[in-house]
């Protein structure tokens, strides 16, 4: 290509046609980068306004750079409790949902049994139902069984496990399908029983998939607003807190928390990208 460009007839082309050729060659790249810019813009705004010193109650217009929102992140009444609640729900729901979902994935991938198709449908349905319907239907259950369920922490936890389980099943299933069963058979041939085989062979092999599912589940839980909003009663998670305060005036501390969550998540994801890149390089080097 470069030698062609150096030839005299090419060099004499008009500026317009050269610009057009450039655009034609790079249009896709430019478009892709513009879309990336569009995706990043609100994130940049969130982080930027976490450093703003707002003039009035509203944090909409840039005024002055300050670190004080980060130092005084819990200065807003209720924000710290809401974050603690979000983390508690997220951890508990993730642990339970990961356990339930992994067991279901094992059954679906490993065994042929009556009702396998129906189970797949049952797992798929919550993911394809609008969140508002999931939230509303759970609320009607809780309202009709007030003797058993009072709206609050416990109902939020129940709701989160319910919508996370499906995502765990799908994530772990994808990993189990490409998994060598001979390893387990070998363990059994060597005299290990089912439980020992599961503990010593199966579990270590599916642990990465479980971790990925748990991270996804935690991210879903901590971000959920709609389903939580219907079933929270008076309990506030971080998204519920933001919803409530959005009607008055959003303090910069909300941006601080959102930025902090973002930075932690990106750090985990980048570590993963880097790790995969390195292990890919290593396997390429080995062969």
């Amino acid at each position, binding site marked *: 290509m470069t030698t062609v460009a150096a030839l005299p007839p090419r060099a004499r082309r008009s500026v317009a046609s050269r610009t057009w050729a450039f655009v034609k060659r790079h249009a896709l790249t430019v478009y892709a980068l513009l879309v990336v810019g569009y995706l990043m813009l609100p994130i940049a705004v*969130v982080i930027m306004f976490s450093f703003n010193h707002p003039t009035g109650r509203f944090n909409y217009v840039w005024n002055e750079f300050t670190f004080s929102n980060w130092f005084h992140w819990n200065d807003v009444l209720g924000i710290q409790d809401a974050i603690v609640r979000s983390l508690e729900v997220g951890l508990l729901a993730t642990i339970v949902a990961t356990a339930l979902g992994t067991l279901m994935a094992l059954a679906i991938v490993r065994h042929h049994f009556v009702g396998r198709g129906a189970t797949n449908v049952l797992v798929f349905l919550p993911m394809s139902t609008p969140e508002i319907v999931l939230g509303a239907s759970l609320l009607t259950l809780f309202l009709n069984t007030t003797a058993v369920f009072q709206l609050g922490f416990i109902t939020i936890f129940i709701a989160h496990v319910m919508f996370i389980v499906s995502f765990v099943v799908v994530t772990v299933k994808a990993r189990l399908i490409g998994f060598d069963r001979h390893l387990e058979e070998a363990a059994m041939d060597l005299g290990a029983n089912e439980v020992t085989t599961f503990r010593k062979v199966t579990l270590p092999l599916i642990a990465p998939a479980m971790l990925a599912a748990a991270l996804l589940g935690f991210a879903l839980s901590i971000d959920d607003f709609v389903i939580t909003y219907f079933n929270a009663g008076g309990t506030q998670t971080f998204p519920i807190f933001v919803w409530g305060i959005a009607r008055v005036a959003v303090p910069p501390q909300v941006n601080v928390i*959102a930025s902090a969550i973002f930075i932690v998540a990106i750090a985990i994801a980048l570590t993963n990208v880097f790790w995969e890149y390195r292990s890919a390089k290593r396997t390429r080097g080995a062969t």
Partner: protein
Amino acid sequence: MGTFFHRHRGATPYLLLAPGVLWLAIFFVIPLAFLGYESLQSGLFPNFEFTWQFSNFSDGIRDYHTQLLRSFVYAGIATLACLVLAYPLVYWIAFRAGAWRNLFLLFIVAPFFVTYLVRTLAWLNILADEGPVVGILRDLHILGPDGRLLATTFAVVSGITYNFFPFMALPIYVSLEQMDARLLEAAKDLYASPIQAFIRVTLPLSAPGIVAGTLLTFIPAAGDFINAALLGTPNQAMIGNVIQSKFLESLDYPSAAALSFILMGLILVALLVYARIVGSERLTG
């Protein structure tokens, strides 16, 4: 315990499934039944009675057909916008980004790492009347001197587009990434122009991704109420806003439950029409 599993081999899958299936049955299937029961009740809070009140459904459609239609129009436009924005980007990532692929994929999911409500509120900053975007558009006379972007249909639809973008982008990326690059070489060897190769080879092979992405974007978008609540006015209210306010503010459970079922039913109809158009084997497989 090991011997127990040995003796009851056939029971193993059911034992593994039991906790998860029970959870989904009690907290997903039964609630839907309760929602159905609720939707046929009548009366005023808190004294509802089950009276086979089918008029909740007809009244729901009569009173809220505007919001229902609006939900589907907004969701449809947003889905299309997602497709137009996402396809070239993931095409570029799959075929041109080389070693940077994973990093650019991270850019696609990055919005998910910012709390849904907060990233929607960020659009308030961007589209604000005093903000730079409105200023530039006013200077270019695209907007009138009093023109605004906030509290308009544009704001709501672009909020939905932004929030559900990754649901469109990721499935298309997966389908493009699985594509055998040699097929494109073969097309080239057979004298296909780049555009012909794209239309005859790449596009059909990425169709499953487009179909999956469309569903994953359209379904949650049709039920959304956050974007309309934060970026719009009652004139942009979607059916989600109506259901939400009836459930949690006016406490009119029967009609809210009926509207939830109408929403699900209409989504199902939309899916069937879509399946008719793209072919049902693509939808399931």
